């Protein structure tokens, strides 16, 4: 592909990803509120549109027109960069997600690693946002959040290494190809659980939502944000959640592989199932304490992920013969 064509393809895909992320956030927020309503025996939003279907659309319109408040002593540049740096990696990580056979922007040699590396930049955004707000809650939220992020990145990466070992490649299409008969969930159940749990921590969802534990920190790093910038954090959170779930589908559930239905549909069904799982967890489990969370990462998940590597090696032997 020539340079210009690559650029055009990239720009197009960027615009598409952004639209997808935006639409997804709108839908997922509503779904989440509905699910939380069911779990807590409420009905959730009901007033805007039939069954409250337009509630989040209305929210977005409201957010866009809200005043953009910036604390007087906040560092202007960092305050602006913070939300951007959390949202952009989430959008960028869509570049390697295979929605279906041709629907992947770049089937990189290092696709799997790319997916793990790019969202890592989010930690910078969280720190900046928390620090720039010049507010103790924000600051603590930002520090906790990125500390958690970095700690859980290690077991998460190691959990994925197991899959890479089995697939023998970092290329997304090769990972999918390797699961044509048996999804890795079967060979790597521990890896799947590890990936899922550490992903919950990575996207700051309960039971790992320490950085924004409302009862302690108001809203964590985004306490001082409002309007569009606040919406960007939301976009980042749900974008990252969807991307991570999509990747769980790729890594463990065989992506779009499935009988009868087209790959695209299978992919969405599996991904949304995982998204639902995370929401279910969120609304049923209590929250960890900050120090428990760190201990869990280093003393439980890290050793477990090493065990998982050994298991992956055994699984390789089984597959090989």
């Amino acid at each position, binding site marked *: 592909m020539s340079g210009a064509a690559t650029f055009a393809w990239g720009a197009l895909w960027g615009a598409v990803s952004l639209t997808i992320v935006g639409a997804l956030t709108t839908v997922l927020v509503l779904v989440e509120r509905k699910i939380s309503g069911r779990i807590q025996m409420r009905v959730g939003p009901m007033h805007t549109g039939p069954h409250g279907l337009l509630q989040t659309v209305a929210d977005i319109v409201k957010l866009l027109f809200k005043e953009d408040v910036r604390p007087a002593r906040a560092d202007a540049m960092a305050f602006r960069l913070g939300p951007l740096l959390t949202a952009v990696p989430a959008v960028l990580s869509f570049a390697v997600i295979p929605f279906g056979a041709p629907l992947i922007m770049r089937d990189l*040699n*290092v696709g799997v690693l790319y997916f793990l590396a790019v969202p890592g930049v989010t930690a910078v955004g969280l720190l900046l946002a928390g620090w720039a707000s010049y507010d103790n809650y924000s600051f603590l939220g930002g520090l906790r959040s990125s500390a958690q992020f970095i700690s859980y990145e290690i077991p998460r990466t190691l959990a994925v290494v197991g899959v890479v070992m089995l697939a023998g490649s970092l290329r997304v299409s090769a990972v999918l190809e390797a699961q044509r008969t048996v999804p890795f969930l079967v060979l790597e159940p521990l890896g799947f659980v590890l990936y899922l749990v550490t992903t919950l921590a990575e996207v700051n969802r309960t039971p790992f939502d320490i950085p924004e534990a409302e009862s302690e920190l108001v809203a964590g790093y985004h306490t001082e944000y409002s309007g569009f910038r606040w919406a960007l954090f939301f976009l980042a959170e749900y974008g990252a959640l969807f991307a991570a779930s999509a990747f769980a589908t790729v890594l463990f559930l065989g992506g779009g592989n499935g009988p009868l239905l087209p790959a695209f549909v299978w992919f969405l069904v599996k991904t949304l199932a995982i998204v639902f799982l995370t929401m279910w967890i969120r609304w049923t489990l209590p929250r960890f304490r900050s120090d428990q969370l760190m201990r869990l990462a280093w003393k439980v998940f890290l050793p477990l992920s090493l065990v998982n590597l050994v298991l992956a090696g055994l699984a390789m032997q089984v597959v090989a013969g």
Partner: protein
Amino acid sequence: MSGGQSMLFVLVGVVAAVSALYAVLTRQILRSIMSLGAFLTAVAVEFYVLAADFVSVVQIFVYVGGVVVLMLFALMLSASGERHPLAGADRPGLGAVLAYLVGGGLVVASLGAGLPEPGKAPAQTVDLLGRSFLGGQLFAFELMGVVLLAAVVAALVVARGERQ
């Protein structure tokens, strides 16, 4: 490199140089670190242009996601006094001359080096790297593990020493 690629290389190179310059010039440490982040990302793009995609992703992973975050942590935990631009005490004169001489010498030598243009880069970077790491460079790879152990222990000891 094809024509388009070398143009991209030069463009991104300018971005890298400018952000590096801003990183070492600005008196606000936060901006310096952020500019370093931009610089590192630009270098990662350069790696990609040079057909070293694995190195490129490692650069993002370790540098932008790791080192920059560490630096921000260090800055923020020592933040109270440093929110404002640093006062004087820098000494530009001699350093500028020396850096100019070294840089100039290097540039002149590079222009005269007359190295051949590289051939087509291998496509299977990951495979080849893996073979290299577990083959010819195995010892270096293992040694890296010991270096990491040393760094962890050293960082822990230094950080703990201060608590006593």
